[in-house]
């Protein structure tokens, strides 16, 4: 397996060559990928919001945003600016501290999870050995923030919304974790890079979706529930709860919730493509293609091409999943809270457990196909 381009190594080498001591060169390099990832996450959200509005409009035979920029691409920016300039209101009887901290607790873990999202062999902020586990544990901080803001709003709708968010997140975390665990078991690693590499061998046929079809569906349902997308958007069910825990929020604090929900959606789609759709791998392995064309994969321009194909593949897979999520939003009606919990505890959990056990058995029986 080629390691591909190593931006970190070459950048640090460049700085060292310029006469900067190695530790300082490393420190200088550190903030760059983080800032880049923040930008990527934010731009990803802008695209997701625009897609949501355009696709929703298309499904309902409307035009959607039209006047802000070509095809309304600047509409999410306009929305953001509007929220930025709105008055920041804290209700009289709300708890100002919890009310302010709540949105931050919701948003920060989601952005932190971008640490482990790989766009290529070395195109990741850090290749953590506990990557998938980090994401699962960070995503269970979010409901605390939701509960906090729902409770601090001193509003019955907000409180019910917050409680529902907590109940929903807790009950869907388990099948989510179990389905991810099956994938982890096959790749013998929690690192997102290793998970992708384990799928990279046979092109599209090597992707986990073929070996984990049940886990794939469970993960998708749980991810929709985690991100509170429409069949499971009970915490903010507008017909019953006004806007759930967001009811009392305006301005930037509301924008944080809004941003957080879309970052979470994009993040789930990204990790979904990493866990099940082979991450940055092309349907036909790029190395094989290069061999067919008779070029060495080690050539610099081939490596740049490979990296850009990888990034494109990740984004294509991610936005395909975002598209499906948006289409699902306008297709499926919202489930009731008892149906939601029934589905989580009585269907997804046993099926995820069975899936895990079967994966373990298959791994023992066919170590070749299931990553022994």
């Amino acid at each position, binding site marked *: 397996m080629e390691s591909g381009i190593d931006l970190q190594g070459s950048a640090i080498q460049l700085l060292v060559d310029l006469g900067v001591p190695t530790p300082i060169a490393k420190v200088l390099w550190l903030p760059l990928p983080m800032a880049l990832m923040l930008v990527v996450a934010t731009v990803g959200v802008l695209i997701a919001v625009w897609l949501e509005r355009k696709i929703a409009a*298309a499904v*309902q*035979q409307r*035009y959607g945003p039209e006047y802000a920029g070509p095809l309304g691409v600047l509409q999410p920016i306009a929305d953001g600016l509007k929220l930025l300039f709105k008055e920041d209101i804290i209700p009289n009887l709300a708890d100002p501290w919890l009310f302010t901290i709540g949105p931050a607790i919701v948003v920060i873990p989601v952005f932190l999870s971008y640490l482990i999202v790989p766009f290529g062999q070395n195109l990741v902020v850090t290749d953590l050995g506990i990557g998938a586990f980090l994401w699962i544990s960070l995503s269970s901080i979010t409901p605390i923030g939701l509960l906090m803001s729902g409770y601090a709003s001193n509003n019955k709708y907000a409180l019910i919304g917050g409680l529902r968010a907590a109940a929903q997140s807790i009950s869907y975390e388990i099948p989510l974790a179990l389905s991810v665990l099956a994938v982890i078991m096959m790749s013998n690693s929690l690192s997102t890079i290793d998970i992708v590499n384990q799928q990279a061998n046979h092109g599209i046929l090597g992707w986990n979706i073929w070996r984990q079809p049940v886990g794939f569906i469970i993960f998708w349902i749980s991810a929709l529930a985690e991100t509170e997308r429409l069949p499971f958007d009970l915490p903010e069910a507008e017909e019953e709860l006004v806007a759930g825990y967001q009811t009392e929020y305006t301005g930037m604090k509301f924008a944080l919730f809004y941003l957080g929900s879309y970052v979470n959606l994009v993040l789930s789609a990204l990790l979904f493509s990493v866990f099940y759709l082979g991450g940055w791998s092309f349907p036909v392995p790029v190395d094989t293609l290069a061999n067919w064309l008779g070029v060495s994969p080690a050539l610099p321009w081939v490596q740049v091409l490979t990296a850009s194909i990888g990034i494109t593949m990740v984004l294509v897979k991610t936005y395909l999943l975002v598209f499906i999520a948006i*289409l699902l939003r306008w297709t*499926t009606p919202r489930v009731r809270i008892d149906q939601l919990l029934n589905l989580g505890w009585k269907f997804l959990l046993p099926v995820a457990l069975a899936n895990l056990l079967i994966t373990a058995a298959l791994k023992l029986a066919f170590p070749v196909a299931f990553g022994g």
Partner: protein
Amino acid sequence: MLKFLKQVGDYAKESFQAAKYIGQGLSVTFDHMRRRPVTVQYPYEKVIPSERYRGRIHFEFDKCIACEVCVRVCPINLPVVDWEFNKPQKKKQLKHYSIDFGVCIFCGNCVEYCPTNCLSMTEEYELSAYDRHELNYDNVALGRLPEKVTLDPMVTPLREFAYLPKGVLDPHDLPKGAQRAGKRPEEILEEIEREKAAAAPSEDEG
């Protein structure tokens, strides 16, 4: 044991059915995405109201005989008819007439029953105001003619679905003089006239 297995089987079947129905729903929404939007982009485009459109009511002061039929047929007795008996003329003389469009439901009963046809419905539907009292139209406001959508240079007038040529679904960029499906009322009238003319001689003979 068998019962349990049957339960499991039924449950699995139901799950597959649910998945199938969600798939069907997705295919419906997906299919809708390739259809053209039906939006009329309002301030720039406006639909031409049909000839039977029941919009703001027009009132002709001079035709009114202050009979108050409009008030009696109105579901909520809305029109205000202010008249005075003119002794020498032995006639009711109308002083003021008003209808509050903030309350009117545009049922058209007053128009239907007016004995002198002094009331009529217009195609005006843009009745927005900053104050609800502004919607209380007096006889002067009621006497104003509506602006025609087709004469406004700022607006692209769009035809309603029933007024499009046969097989056309999109009101944008119609060729000039494109006629709606079927015969126009005046054509039907002409046809009746012609039939009458054809039938008349034979009647004379008979």
